[in-house]
């Protein structure tokens, strides 16, 4: 379990670095930390997900100098919402539905947060984030379950 948690921490740190260094500047319209938090919430138990959501939400607020703790609140709410859905809904496509639901809510909340209805930008954010999430999800789950014993897998 420790190895699994360390992998989550490493992945989130890399995502956080990608967001702050932006090697593609604003050509790639996505937020890696947000995708990472969703990914962790979909693959980890509630307590671990909430811990990472709070930690990285706080770190993001500290860098943005956001006094409203916007990211802290949003990421914590995402962790709670995703685990509520995972507990109450079952099926093959439930994780995909949860991801798209959270992504759409994130876009709406951010449009309110910046007081603008940025239609084109929101559409691009949706497309880029969906593609990156599919890619990251595939790579992360492959890495996560490589070398883990059966009883470590949730």
């Amino acid at each position, binding site marked *: 379990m420790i190895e699994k948690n360390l992998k989550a921490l490493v992945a989130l740190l890399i995502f956080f670095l990608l967001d702050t*260094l932006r090697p593609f*500047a604003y050509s790639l319209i996505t937020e890696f930390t947000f995708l990472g938090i969703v990914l962790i919430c979909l693959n980890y138990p509630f307590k671990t997900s909430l811990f990472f959501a709070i930690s990285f939400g706080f770190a*993001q607020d500290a*860098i943005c100098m956001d006094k409203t703790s916007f990211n802290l609140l949003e990421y914590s709410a995402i962790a709670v919402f995703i685990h509520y859905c995972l507990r109450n809904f079952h099926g093959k496509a439930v994780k995909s539905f949860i991801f798209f639901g959270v992504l759409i809510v994130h876009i709406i909340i951010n449009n309110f947060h*910046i007081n*603008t209805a*940025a*239609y084109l*930008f929101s559409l691009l954010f949706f497309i880029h984030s969906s593609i990156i999430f599919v890619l990251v999800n595939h790579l992360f789950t492959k890495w996560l379950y490589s070398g883990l014993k059966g009883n470590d897998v949730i």
Partner: protein
Amino acid sequence: MSFSSQRLILTQNSSKTIEELRKKNLILLSALRKNQTLTEENEKLRKALAFKEDKKVEMVGAEIASFDPSVWRRLVIINAGKDKGLGEGMFAVDSEGFLIGRLVDVKNSFSRLMLVDDPEFNLPVYIGNDALGLLSGGVDFVKIQYIDISDNVKLNDIVWFKIPLISYPIYVGRVRKINENKNGLFLDVDVRLFSQNPLLKKIFIIK
């Protein structure tokens, strides 16, 4: 020595030579890339120097250290602050003198720069010769609002502004699209920015 062993030695020698040539080629290629980067940087600095001398303005060079993690905002952190005499409200330009943004938070050794396309960026600007409007940033489009309908604004007109106490104009961009406001009293104008490369490493703050 038989013909086949002579040929074997020759082949071994030539494969060694090829290997060495490949290594040399790699070294030369990397030196060439480094040279190209230096030439580009040199060119940018020359342009900035020309701008500085031409306009007789005091500027401080800085580099982008990191970006705001939220893609919905356009804020960057630069590696210069109060230690280099910077203050809030100062404007940043690129090496060609086009507006990039404005300092919104200045610390001792770093500052926070709000780029022109940040949703909270606002600046009174001129369009063409004398039309006046309020430039507002946005992640979708940068717009100018509240332009009087009687003002003769045309497509491709230059958008510019003046810093108080400095006599020359700072160019922002060109008019891309003109729309009539919903209430029919004003024009809303979309602007194509001159400086659209946020990956640029060197920026200059006008003091």
